[in-house]
């Protein structure tokens, strides 16, 4: 068990280093000077030079990369002040520490993800199970058709339509807004309800389709049929055998989705003006705020890798035949 986690952590570290190098060098290969961003409207050569010194941009790119990587592990000193590990440096756009900014945005993304996932897991799996259980019935048919259409929706299409219907034209609800859960749980819930619903719509549809099809597949498996033939009740067979067997693919997909959602849901955040990691990413790209892009890229990749490990570990719990090695 310990060995499994150690090995996976090591592997993840290697991948992260590769990703950071790839991103860093590719970005420095473009002709635009990243210091321009920090230079303001009256950008004289003098101030540009000062900024280069302040940001360490006057050194060769490989040296800059090594300093950046060393900063993550050991922290480093900037003209602005010391930056304790893990130090991703300071934003070129507003001189704020990258890591603090990311940590600050993370709760919004976590809230969006956790709430959205709660909605789509319950609704999606519930609908999928019901459809599989009542296979061929009217329920099955309507669920399947609805999920087909809904899964084809795009957030940038659905979002404005829902906002228009619930908020701006009817005033039924407030505009979406993030309040910290610790500050006011009720406001947190109400403020994020619309984003959760819209985001979950598409996921719900996908999970309905997926859980239905895997369940049906499982029901046709030999051990399930054997159990049925032995006279077990349909319910027992369904929940004890088929359901358990269908968990693996669902957990796999869920882990992947969580990984990418924790890294920021760009389109959802953009559509609802929420300041999470996704929004941070888009903003920093539009501004070519290099350290911020690096920080977000590494943070998001870490999330993905983390959930990959979790999923692999989860297999062992779901299916005793899988051993962690």
């Amino acid at each position, binding site marked *: 068990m310990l060995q499994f986690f150690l090995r996976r952590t090591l592997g993840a570290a290697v991948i992260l280093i590769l990703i950071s190098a790839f991103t860093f060098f590719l970005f420095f290969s473009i002709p635009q000077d990243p210091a321009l961003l920090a230079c303001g409207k009256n950008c004289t050569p003098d101030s540009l030079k000062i900024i280069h010194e302040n940001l360490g941009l006057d050194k060769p790119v490989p040296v800059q990369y090594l300093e950046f990587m060393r900063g993550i592990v050991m922290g480093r000193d900037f003209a602005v002040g010391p930056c304790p590990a893990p130090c991703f440096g300071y934003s070129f756009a507003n001189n704020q520490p990258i890591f603090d900014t990311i940590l600050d945005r993370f709760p919004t993304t976590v809230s969006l993800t956790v709430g959205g996932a709660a909605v789509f897991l319950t609704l999606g799996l519930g609908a999928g199970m019901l459809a599989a259980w009542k296979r061929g019935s009217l329920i099955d048919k309507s669920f399947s058709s609805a999920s087909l259409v809904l899964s084809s929706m795009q957030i*940038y299409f659905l979002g404005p339509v829902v906002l228009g219907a619930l908020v701006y034209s009817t005033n039924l609800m407030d505009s979406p807004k993030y309040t910290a859960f610790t500050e006011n749980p009720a406001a947190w819930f109400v403020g994020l309800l619309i984003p959760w619903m819209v985001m979950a719509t598409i996921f719900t549809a996908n999970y309905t389709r997926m859980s239905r099809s895997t369940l049906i597949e499982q029901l046709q498996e030999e051990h399930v049929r054997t159990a049925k033939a032995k006279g077990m009740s349909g319910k027992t067979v369904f929940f004890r055998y088929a359901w358990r067997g269908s968990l693996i693919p669902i957990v796999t997909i869920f882990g992947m989705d969580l990984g990418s959602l924790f890294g920021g849901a760009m389109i959802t955040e953009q559509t609802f003006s929420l300041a999470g990691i996704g929004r941070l990413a888009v903003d920093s790209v539009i501004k070519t705020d290099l350290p911020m892009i690096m920080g977000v890229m590494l943070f998001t990749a870490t999330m993905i890798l983390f959930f990959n490990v979790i999923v692999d570990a989860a297999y062992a719990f779901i299916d005793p035949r899988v051993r962690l090695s």
Partner: protein
Amino acid sequence: MTSPTQAAGISADSAAIPEPPAGGAVKKDGSAEGRSPGQLMWIRFKRDRTGVISACVVFFFFAVGLLAPVISWLYGKNPYTTYGLETPGLLDDFNFPTGANGGISADHWFGIEPLLGRDVMMQLVYGIRTSLLIGLAVTAATVLTAIVVGVTAGYMGGKTDYWLGRVMDFLLAFPSQLFFVAFMPVVVALFVNPEEETPTYIRVVALFLVLWFLGWMGLGRLLRGQTLSLREREFVEAAKVSGAPPWRIVRKELLPNLVTPILVQATYMLPAAVTSQAGLSFLGVGLLEPTPDWGRMFATAGRVYEMDPTYMFFPGVAMVLFVVCFNLFGDSLRDAFDPKSGR
């Protein structure tokens, strides 16, 4: 952009590729009449009316994309002229269409665009053309890459398999959305002299590159797995024993057995590529004005939705119709190939 869609694609995998398309199953069905698997598939597909209808819609979208210049010629409008600015009375003081329903008229069937006053139908038709072109290219390239890498890894095994597997792990750990957004400007900047107008094709190529780069690993892994299990099958063993060169084994024995998952996956990948591309434009890193673009229409439509909902209507309905029909088509295709997996 596509995490949900990707999930759809992958979730469909598990159903789409239950076991390698068992030659046995096909034989059981068809041996009585002695038809080839291809013929059988065609017969089954023809019986599936929804499948045929969605295939027609899919075909229609391709036709629209392909014939955009012809449509433009017949319709007498183009996607670039700012009709609303040139003809007084079409747009009001705030540059919104004066006519009802977004300015739908005999001249402008889908209305005119707020602000610039271009023809919505032409914008959409050309937008579809661009999106489909990129989507097709991305799909073709990803499928090809996946075949090469997946089959190589699966067939060669050993070290090759290990290292190709690590490459795929590496690429899978890349945050794909963020990668698309972050590298679009970089890729464009790499190609262009900063003082010249960026030709549209460079942006198209950049879009293609970022979408392709992280698009192929899912299918690659799947094909690797399939190849791995096929390699152990008797008919491949037999071919090996008879001394057939590896290339021949891949071509004659492996690939024909992989056609089903490849085709089915491709039908799911194409709409995913189209929506991803639209998502990039929505976030502001896609194609630029004045190149007509489906995704950018959504970005504008979202902002003017309350005042001019019609402008959201046509691109929106077209997009939903397109994705639904493509998925239906993919389902039908899969069922026709492999009736056992039917849901």
